[in-house]
């Protein structure tokens, strides 16, 4: 086909319009490559159409490109690394978010475990203190038990003389017991049956000879209030025939105040 005839056919105008089939498009392209005058004609037509179309543009749209760039996350970097840079930058952003999220979770976990640790430590402190106080109690209980066992073994000794002391006029409900170990010249007093002495007063223990009535002070019970089992031991080297307990002013008296005789008991005659 004559090339001028080909150009004059109007196919190139339709080519620029995009009105041809895919097959026809390839044919025109082949002709363009073969004949420079066809290419020249196509460029002219295209130029005319773009100018015509642009003449309809009543607004300047060059600023839209900024929005396009923003939407596509485009940077002004050079071509060659562009296709790589964009996806990596996107991925990095995801890693950035994930990284921050992980850091926040990690920090929260750290704070939580520090708080947890502190509260556990204080709990340990409490438990340790409790254990100490329990230990002390066990120690005390052991001591008490030892003392009680000692007392029991003393009371069971066959040489012990047991003297019950009965309540007297000033306090009829009172009672007491004296366990007298003649061998070791000591007595044990069980004063559980006596009321608490009023402030400024103490109980005083007396060894008595009956004929004639001669009282000898064995001592005052200064620790009555603080002692829990109310068992006291005193020395007694006298040939006692009876024991009495009076309430005396703090510090004790030279001779018993008989009006304040709480309990009194006579030693049974030795068999």
């Amino acid at each position, binding site marked *: 086909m004559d090339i001028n005839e080909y150009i004059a056919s*109007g196919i190139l105008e339709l080519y620029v*319009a*995009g009105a041809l089939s895919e097959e026809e498009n390839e044919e025109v392209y082949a002709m363009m490559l073969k004949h420079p005058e066809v290419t020249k004609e196509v460029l*002219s037509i295209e130029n005319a*159409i773009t100018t015509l179309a642009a*003449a*309809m543009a*009543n607004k300047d749209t060059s600023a839209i490109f900024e929005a396009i760039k923003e939407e596509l996350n485009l*940077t002004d970097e050079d071509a060659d690394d*562009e296709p790589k840079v964009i996806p990596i930058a996107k991925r990095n952003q995801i890693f950035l978010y994930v990284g921050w999220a992980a850091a926040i979770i990690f920090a929260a976990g750290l704070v939580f475990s520090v708080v947890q640790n502190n509260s556990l430590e204080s709990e340990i402190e409490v438990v340790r203190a409790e254990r100490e106080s329990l230990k002390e109690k066990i120690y005390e209980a052991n001591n008490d038990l030892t003392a009680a066992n000692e007392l029991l073994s003393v009371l069971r000794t066959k040489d012990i003389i047991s003297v019950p002391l009965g309540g007297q006029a000033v306090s009829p409900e009172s009672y007491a017991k004296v366990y007298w170990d003649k061998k070791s010249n000591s007595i044990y007093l069980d004063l559980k049956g006596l009321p608490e002495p009023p402030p400024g007063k103490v109980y005083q223990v007396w060894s008595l000879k009956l004929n004639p009535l001669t009282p000898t002070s064995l001592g005052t019970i200064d620790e009555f209030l603080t002692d829990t089992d109310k068992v006291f031991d005193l020395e007694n080297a006298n040939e006692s025939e009876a024991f009495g307990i009076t309430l005396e002013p703090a510090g004790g008296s030279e001779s018993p105040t008989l009006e304040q005789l709480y309990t009194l008991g006579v030693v049974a005659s030795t068999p």
Partner: protein
Amino acid sequence: MEIELLIKKFKNKDAKAFESLYAMYNDSIFGVINNIVKNDDVAMEVTQDVFIKAWNKSESYTSKKGRFFTWLLNIARNAAIDKVRSKSFKNAQQNLDVDFFVHSIETNDSLDQKTNAIGIKKYVGKLAEKCKRIVQYIYFKGYTQKETAEALEIPLGTVKTRNRNCIKELRKALEV
């Protein structure tokens, strides 16, 4: 820069080449889109979408398939027609259809600053009615030869030559 090189770089996702191509074609593409949607704001929105679409499928263009402008023109016409057909779009100027491009060129004040302004206005002003319609259908509506022939009620074989004659007048006016 040689347009072939620009297109090659564009296909390799070169933002600078993309910007150059945008600067070359944004007015034409916006004009074509506005010719269809007949609303400046919507046309700008569609223009943005069209170039984003072009960027995203830039690898799909080959020169064997046609001119780069024609490829863009196709995307633009399809996007604009989709927009017009979409539910959200209310087209109040349906009746201005055929000679809208002539009208918009004649009333385009911003055109006066451009080169060829006088030529193109002169061309449009004395354009025969049959040319207005054929140019509108073939270039701005994307009709095929057959569709154009049916719309103009002329024989299929006449479309090519009549269109060529109309474009010849345009080229004379523009001196291209």
